[in-house]
Structures are given as structure tokens and as C-alpha cells.
């Protein structure tokens, strides 16, 4: 019998602790497939975030270190500077990357740090129980915006790809989503490019992945898939925000 589909070698067989309908499982698989396809598993070092994906070392079959909340780009910088021929990636959520770690993100991008950043944006804090994220939409109800995010009180959602596109060092910035097969195929293409760029020494690459959080959005998995198309994408349009040739 010919095997046409199997678990990527870069993904361990451990059971994921993610909630039903969460996008992390899909994104993990895409990252693992890309690492396999590029043949870099044995030279890759990942950085696990604080938040839902904190157990990345239990899921990715590569060397992984943890980092304090928001600091993965600094930790990645330390690794990459002493081992420039390794492939270094961070896997971060919206609180990690766009709130507490904004400075580390902006400066790693601005230095053109030759790393790959996978930025999972689900517009909410997942692990801590559904509080407002910097990317929470205006009017979106969360544990700390019970009446909906208010422009005057909370400010508008922070758009990371748009923000980082102003930095000289960012080589590649793309926003994708994983809410349907077509978008998932595009997301994989973007993730592959972000890793390929690093191998080609192009500098800082970030893929922002719009992802589902049905539990904290108080939706069914199907509703959350639709919500991305009907609501989320209006504030966070998909597309390439920078692609330095």
C-alpha cells in the first residue's frame, strides 16, 4: 500500500491540549510540514511563547526553548547571533507579540534579524481566559471588555503587519488565515516563504495567521470559521504587506 499522507517528522505524536476548533493544531502542522519540506529539522531551534502555545516543546520535534512573555524575538536574536547557520523561529500569540513584546518585535524587525516569526492572531487572550488583546476588534466582547472594545477607552486594534512594514529591516510580512482549505494552502505558502527567506539570509520574516478561538469567542467552531470571513477580515485584511526583493 502506498502511503500518501503521514504525520510530519517535525511534529511529535503527543496529543495537543488545544481546545476543539482552535487553529493552533493546523498552524503547528503547517510549520512542521514546512520544516520537513525544507529539510532543516535537524538545524532548527524553536522558541515557545507564553500563552496557549507554551507547550510547543511537547509538540514540535525540534530543539525548543521557552522565553518570558513577549521576549521570543530577543531570545531568537541571542540564538541566531551565536549560531547563524541554524534556522530559528518564534511562535507567538497576539498578547505575546503585540502587547508585552511590542518593543522586542519592532526592534528585531528593524534590525533585520534573520529569523522567522509565526504570529498567531486570534484577537483575544486564550490561555488566561478570554481577556482583551491588542488585536481585539472594536466592539468585540471579551472578559475585560464586557460591553465591547471601546475606541475611546481601549484604543483601536493594533495592526502588526502594517506597523512593521515601516521598518527597514523587515523582509517579508504577510497576513493569512486558517479558516478554510483555500486559506490554509495560502498560509502554508507564506510560512514556507518565511522559512526560505531565513535560509537565504533575507532577514526578518513574519507571517500573521488569523486563527479561531471558539471557546473564548463563545462560538461553535463553525461559527468562528464564519466570523473570520465576515468580521475579523474587515479589520485585518489578508495580503502581503512587505516583500523585499
Amino acid at each position, binding site marked *: 500500500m502506498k502511503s500518501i499522507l503521514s504525520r510530519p517528522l517535525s511534529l511529535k505524536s503527543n496529543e495537543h491540549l488545544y481546545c476543539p476548533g482552535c487553529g493552533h493544531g493546523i498552524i503547528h502542522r503547517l510549520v512542521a510540514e514546512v520544516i520537513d519540506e525544507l529539510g532543516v529539522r535537524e538545524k532548527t*531551534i524553536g522558541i515557545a511563547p507564553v500563552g496557549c502555545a507554551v507547550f510547543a*516543546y511537547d509538540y514540535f520535534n*525540534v*530543539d525548543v526553548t521557552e*522565553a518570558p512573555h513577549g521576549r521570543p524575538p*530577543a531570545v531568537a536574536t*541571542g540564538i*541566531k547571533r*551565536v*549560531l547563524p547557520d541554524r534556522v530559528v523561529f518564534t511562535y507567538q500569540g497576539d498578547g505575546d507579540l503585540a502587547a508585552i513584546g511590542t518593543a522586542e518585535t519592532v526592534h528585531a524587525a528593524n534590525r533585520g534579524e534573520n529569523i522567522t516569526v509565526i504570529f498567531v492572531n486570534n484577537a483575544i487572550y486564550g490561555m488566561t481566559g478570554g481577556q482583551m488583546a491588542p488585536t481585539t476588534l472594536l466592539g468585540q466582547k471579551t472578559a475585560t471588555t464586557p460591553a465591547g472594545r471601546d475606541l475611546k477607552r481601549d484604543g483601536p486594534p493594533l495592526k502588526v503587519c502594517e506597523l512593521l512594514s515601516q521598518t527597514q529591516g523587515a523582509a517579508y510580512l504577510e497576513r493569512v488565515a486558517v479558516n478554510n482549505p483555500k486559506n490554509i494552502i495560502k498560509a502554508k505558502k507564506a510560512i514556507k516563504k518565511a522559512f526560505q527567506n531565513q535560509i537565504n539570509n533575507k532577514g526578518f520574516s513574519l507571517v500573521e495567521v488569523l486563527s479561531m478561538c471558539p471557546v473564548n469567542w463563545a462560538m461553535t467552531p463553525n461559527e468562528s470559521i464564519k466570523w473570520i470571513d465576515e468580521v475579523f477580515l474587515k479589520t485585518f485584511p489578508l495580503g502581503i504587506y512587505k516583500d523585499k526583493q
Partner: protein
Amino acid sequence: MNKILLKGNIALCEGAIAAGCQAYFGYPITPQNEVPAHMSKRMTELGRVFLQAESELAAINMVLGAAGTGALAMTSSSSPGISLKQEGISYLVGCELPALIVNVQRGGPGLGNIAGSQGDYFQSTKGGGHGDYRMLVLAPSTVQEMYDFANMSFGLAFKYRNPVLILADGVVGQMMEPVTIVTSDQKPVTSKDQQQIAWALTGAKGRPPRFHRSLLMDDGALEKLNWKLNEKYNSIKKNEVRYESENIEDADIILVAFGIAARVAKVAARKAREQGIKAGLIRPITLWPFPEKVIADNAKPGRKFLVVEMNLGQMVEDVRLAVNGKCPVEFLGRPGGGLVNEQEVLQEIKTIAK
């Protein structure tokens, strides 16, 4: 042997370089600015890593990343900057990673001033960051020791897989003294050497993947790690206590002081002896592990201790613990960048001797 005149902060850099320091990450703050400035030149010349981070937080986390790969990594700062680094220091300890952290202390609290101070004793020896942890803390009192301690700290950090802190102060950092440079044939660790380190993250080539984590959610797992770390701390306490003593055998008054304050105290104790008061000095070199045994062994009825510090009284608490009520422990100190002088100390010795 090569003797040259160096500033404390520069001697520190050269000591670390001689030990094979591969990567320096830092952020400017007075009075340690000579360190990143000198490292930016020397590390680059040597083909090693220098990076000025965007903040102290970023710098210590760059160290966390570099240390995780088995590289000899270092950062330096001064008091308010060290406060910012505490998060990363706690993670380094939790992940059991070696690194050199240098605090050239200034006056505090808050932004304080840029004068030399010893106000960070508590922060350095009692944790500072969150969690139950310890770091080897070395207190240099000469420019030579800035060189020597930086030179030996990587060995200690790697031996115990724990960060080592050099607790200097603005005076030792800024003063110039002749330094004997040890010509060492030690070469910086290469990426190939790093691959030989059993715990280093270098990419899982030909071996199962490794990970560094301090998050242990399983029932009892974190307690287990803490007990394991405690064994390590006990072994450090057993093997690494360092101190200097002078004229304590027959002393009626034993001064205890560290760093630059110890040099002032030493002169005052010698002058007291010239004037007929039997005074001696114990200078803790490792502030943690604290040399409690030599103090306990010398605590006898009829004797007095005088602790001299450039703070409101921090190490004096450890001295009192070691003395354990066997004789009086007095304190003389000046906080906020005030430097005790030998006349003040001598006067205090005379007052106590009465």
C-alpha cells in the same frame, strides 16, 4: 606576566574575553558604560558577538537565547537596569543555564544617582527575581578582581549550570589600578564545541530534540525541580565560599565589609591596631554563598563585630544570623552613593571599643 593600568570596567571586559566570552548583549547605563563601549570594539575585532539591545529586558533575553545554545554569554548593567533584568535571570536559573551578569551598582532606590553604592545586596543575594533561587555572587574590591572574577565566572557558571553575578560598584568600575593579565590559551567555544554540550540547543542533528523549560505543570514536578536546585545550591555552599581575613585571631573588634567598603575598612582596622585597638577584618568575596562559618567560628563572648556597608544595613543581617547572638554586631553605613571614609570607620571602632 603582563601588568597594565586599567579601569575597573575595562578590566572586567578583558577578564571575560580571556575566559572565552562569545557573546555580549547590553544596554547603556552609567556607571558601566565603558563595558558595552569596550566590548563593541573588542568583541567585533575578535569575530565574536556584540549587540546593543533595545532594552535591558531584551539584553538579558538575548543572553537567555545564547546561553541556551551553550555559548559563554554575558550582560552588564547598573542597579535600575538590573531590576529590569530580574525576569530573565529567574528564567536562566529555572532553565539551569550558565551566564555572566554584572551589576556595577549605583545609588538607589529608583533612578537614584550615578555614584558607587552597595544598595543591591539584598536583591543580589536573596533572589531579586521571582521564585526560590540563588546565584553565585562575587564582590570584587580591586580592579584586579574585576579581571579575575570575570575570568573565572564562566567556569563557575558552567560547572553549576547557573548564572553568576559579579556585584561591583561604581567606584571599582571607574577606578584605575595596575592589573596582571593572565595569558590564557583558552579559545572561545566554537559552534562544534557547543554541539558536544549535553544540554545545549543546537538543532537536533542525529539526536532526539532537547528543550529548555521552567514551566512544570504536572503535580509535584516543579517542587521536584526546586529540590534538585536546592541540592545544587548546597553543593555551591559547600565548595565555593570565598573570603579574605586579616588579623582576626586576637581581635577584639572584627570588621566585616565587602567590595570597595572593605578597602576602607581594612585601612581603618590597621590604623586602629597602630593605636592599640585590636581590630581585624573579614571580607566576604562570595556574598552568596555567604562565608557564615568563618563568622560563626569567630563569634565569641567579649568580641564585637562592626559591619561597614554603603547602604542602610543589608549584609549586616547575614552577619547577625551567623553570629547568632554570641556577641554584639554594630553597623556603620552610608546609603545613596555615600562613601564611608576611614576616619568615620576608625571613629566608630574607637566608640565601640570603649
